[in-house]
Each structure stands twice: as C-alpha cells, then as structure tokens.
C-alpha cells in the first residue's frame, strides 16, 4: 500500500481567550496515492481544521502527520512553506487568482516561489493546456468566466506536480452545470496524472463521485465506505 497521507491521533486546540476549543480530538486517517477522497461533514465538525492541517497551512497541537513519506507535524514556517510549494496544490472556493496578472503569470506563481528559473513559461502553458485554457493564457482573471477562472486555479494547483491536490468547495461559487464540468476536469486530471485528489464539500452529489467519503463529526473521523478507524 502506497500511502500519501497518514494521519494519526491528530488534535488541534484553539485558545479563544480563556476558553479552549478542541476542533480535532484524535482524528486518524490514511489516503492512498492516486485516490479520490471527499471530506464531508457539518459545519463546526472540524472539517476546515482538518483541511488546513492536511494542506500544511496549519500545524496540529499534537499527533502525527506524514505527507508523502515526510513527517510535517513539527516543521517550522519556512519548511511548511516549502512543503506547500512542492507537495500540495490548492483549489479554493473563491478561486483566489491575482487579478492584476495574466492567467499564465498566475499559474507560474508556485514555480517562482520554488525558485525554478528555466522552462517556467513552458510548464505553466502545459498546465493551462491540460485544463483546456491553452488559448486564454494572456487573459486576466477579470476577462474570464467563473468556470474559466477555476480552471486557471486548477492549472496553478497542478503545475508543480504535487503529491495531493486539495479542493475546498471548488464548485461553491459556480452554477451547477459549470460545477459539474469542474468536477469532471478534476477527476479527469486524477485519472491521467494519478494525482491524489482531496475534495472538501457539502454536496452529496460530488461525494458520490469520489472513491471514498471521509465523514468528520465532532473532531473525529468516520470512514463509512471502509473500515471504521
């Protein structure tokens, strides 16, 4: 079994003044390389916290997290930044593109932070072609439709060949037809490139298309499709 995500007994405690809130209390899960996983759960279940930690945007209070063979639970800020850069691709609900820059520059951004000097243009263009926007590379986000903007964001997520792509409500700001196209694109990329895909969603229809749904409730993981962990 080739595990790309291995989380054991993860805890995250937030301090809000005097009160301590436990957002995650001992969550454990594994995801295999190339898998498509949907993370679902009601608001306040700890779903967002789980996503932030899986995406290395945040550190757990305690517990182990091994991403692509590397333990990341105790890394410092700069090390985490490097991990995010190399191993994680993000797709956000609100696209989060830099409006002043062209689609190509937006897609190039992770490569720039990676310190990659050569063939940056080439790789960014290939990523845009992979999401079907090869003819829109010089457009700015304001000149693109919502669906196209999300495609640019997806190209940006895959340009560095990450170990996992985290999509946080990727269809939340799109109408249902375009939303279906975006999900189809993500699944297609997973099939072609073998990129592990983690989708955080409320939408049961999207959940149905995943190979596995991870339910989070009260800071714990309920794995309904597989064994209970």
């Amino acid at each position: 079994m080739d595990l790309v995500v291995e989380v054991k007994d993860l805890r995250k405690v937030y301090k809000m003044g005097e009160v301590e809130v436990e957002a995650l209390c001992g969550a454990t899960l594994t995801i295999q390389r190339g898998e498509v996983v949907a993370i679902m759960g009601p608001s306040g279940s700890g779903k967002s916290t789980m996503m932030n930690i899986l995406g290395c945007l945040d550190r757990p209070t305690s517990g182990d997290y091994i991403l692509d063979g590397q333990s990341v639970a105790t890394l410092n800020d700069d090390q985490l930044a490097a991990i995010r850069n190399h191993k994680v691709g993000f797709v956000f609900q609100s696209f989060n593109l830099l409006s002043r820059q062209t689609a190509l520059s937006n897609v190039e951004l992770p490569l720039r932070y990676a310190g990659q000097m050569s063939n940056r243009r080439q790789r960014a263009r290939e990523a845009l072609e992979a999401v079907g926007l090869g003819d829109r590379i010089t457009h700015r986000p304001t000149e693109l439709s919502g669906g196209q903007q999300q495609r640019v964001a997806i190209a940006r997520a895959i340009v560095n060949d990450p170990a996992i792509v985290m999509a946080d409500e990727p269809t939340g700001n799109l109408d249902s037809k375009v939303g279906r196209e975006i999900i189809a694109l993500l699944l297609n990329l997973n099939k072609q490139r073998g990129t592990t895909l983690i989708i955080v969603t409320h939408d049961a229809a999207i959940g149905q298309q995943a190979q596995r749904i991870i339910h989070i409730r009260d800071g714990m993981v309920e794995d309904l499709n597989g064994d209970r962990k």
Partner: protein
Amino acid sequence: MNLLQLLLEALESLNSNKMRSGLTVLGIVIGVAAVIAMMAVGNGAQASILGSINGVGTNLLFVFSGARNNAAVKNPRPITMTDANAMMDLYAAPDIKAVAPVLQGNAIADFGGNTKTTTVIGVTPDYYPVRNISLLDGEFINQSNQLGRASVAVIGVDVADALFNRRDGLVGETIRIANSPFRIVGVLTPAGGSSFGSQDNEVLVPITTAQARLITRPTPDAVDTVYVEATDFSTVGAASDEISQILRTRHRTQVGLDDFTVFTQQSILSTVQNVTGVLTIFLGGIAAISLLVGGIGIMNIMLVSVTERTREIGLRKALGARKRDILIQFLVESSLLSLIGGIIGILFGWLIAFVVGRIATATGNNFTPVVGMDAILLATLFSAAVGLFFGIYPANRAAGLEPVEALRYE
C-alpha cells in the same frame, strides 16, 4: 524570484492604484526637492560670500590696535606709522611683501552744491597693490603726493555719481572734502557691495594729508588699520607670527597681553565657512523634516495596502511563499515608491535651484545655487532609507500573517 521580476511585480501593483501611489510619491518628491533646493541655495550663498572674500585677496592680513575680548590689557598703545614701517624689515619679517597702513573717517564731499557723506581713507601708495585696486580712470596716489601732503584724491563711483552725475572726465576736477579743496587724480572701478560695506562710496587721499587735515587722532602718528600682504598664500601664518613679534617688542607688552589684533583673511574665511555651513545644514535639516513626513506617508499607504491585500498574502503563502518572500515583496514596493519620488525630487529640486539662480541674476545679485553631488547622494540615500525604514513595519506585518487567517480574511 529574481530582482527584475520583483521590480516588475511591484511596479504592476503600484500601477494598479495610480492615484494613491502618485500622492505617496509626491510626499517624497517634495521632501527630496526641498532638501536639494535648500542645500543648493545654502551652498550657493556660501560660494558667493567666499568668492567676495577671496576677491579681497587671501594673502591679506589685518592688524588693528586694541585687544579682542581682553580687558586686562592696560594702557594699550595705538599702532603707528612707525610700527607699520617696522613691519617692512626684511630680516624681522621675511614673509611680508607689502604693508599699507590706513586712517579712516567720515567726511562730507561736495562739488557745485552736490554733497555726499563718504568714507575718507588715508592711504599710502602701497595700498594699491595690497588691496588689489583697479582704476576706471586716472592714476593712484603716488610717492610724491604722499611726501608732499598733496591735496589729491581718488574717488569711488558712488561719490562720482553723486557729485558729478558722470564717471569719466573727472580727473583734474576739484572737489571739497571737509571744506578743503582736493584735486581728483583717479576714479575707482565699481566693486559692488561686499561684506565689508560698499567700496564704491570711498574717497582715498594720501595718509599724510589725512593726518594733517582731515582725521585727527590723539597720537599724531597713529593709524587705524594696517593691511599686510604676505608673500604667499602659504606664508600667511608665518607673517602673522612675525607681525605679532614685531609689535610685542615695540609696544613692550606683557606676555599673553597683546594690545593689538592680527586678523587673517583665512580666519575670516573659516568663520564664514562655518556660519554658512551651519546655515546650509539648518536649511537641509528643515527640508529633511518634510522628507520624514513623506516617509510616514509611505508607511501609512503600505499599511493600508497590506490590509487590503491580506487575502493575496494568504494565497501567496499557500502557494509556498516564505516569510522572506512576502517581506521582500513589500519592501521592494515601498523602496520603489521612495526611489521614484527621490529621482523626480532631485530633478524638481534642481529646477527650483535653477529658477532661484535665475531670479537672483535677474535682480542683480551675483549668486548661483550649487547642486552638489553630495546633496544628490544624500537625498538619494536618505529617501531610499526612508522607504526601507518605513516599509519594514508594514512588510513585517504582512510577512507575519498566518496563512489560514489571511485566507479567511474578508
């Protein structure tokens, strides 16, 4: 990220809010322009004053009777013609080239009903080379005038204008000074105003004539000032020592209680240099305050910009930007603001200095503002430092944002 890319991105970001960037830059422009212009005017004033002092001659020494700021000197003796002649001793004073004692007073000159209050100066023929006199017309007082106590005079152009309303053809005319007739032998070239009063409103007569008829002193042989010309610029110090030595011996002064003062052109020069230097720094300092205000403007705008772009910062961090990357990004932006302001400010300050110079020339003042390399360098460095210094806090704030918080920011 390479530097070019950083600069391009920063330019793009500043360009996206032209009005705001423009106004921020304006603050720096005004500050830098003020520094450049003020320092140029200060340097120009210094150069102009020093120039007029240099025109008098830098080998020149002045000897006055009386001590400066020393009340302990009892029975000071005046400096006399004999003292002045003693300074011409080739053995006691090898570094002295010429000596010109003068006697000075005010008198009324009149001609045909026109009168003019003027400064009468009794001079020796050596006054001519020592003070670098040049004549518009006629000739200077000569040795036989001096020996014969002749009633001859060399007049300044102000006096000529007031009495005759013309400047040429005056040699041979007779004017009255303090009711005695004097024949004009020469007219001085107009010198313009100097720091020592106008040299154009003077009448020069032989010192012997002045002693006998125009200016009386308690000691008949006394003179007011002795102008001494040293052999060279570099021997002024030695000449000063020699004069002191001669006068101490002749006046039998107590040790440390000189009853005379030797003043060199160089000491005046350094005094003036000090004063104008302080003036320049003072002006520059005031201008620097406006540069500081401009810097605070940068900080303000950068703080607003950081808040506005919190989500962008969060995104960049999510994509792998390290603290350092964000810090540099914002520092480049703030430095660019101040650098652009600095460059425009230098040009603008230059223009102001140029206009001030033109106005001064047009109003007849011989005064050219000098935009020195030092001022440009100072303003550039200072404005860049302002950009960096006032950019550090906002940039640090941006770099320190937590990615999760920043992404959630609305």
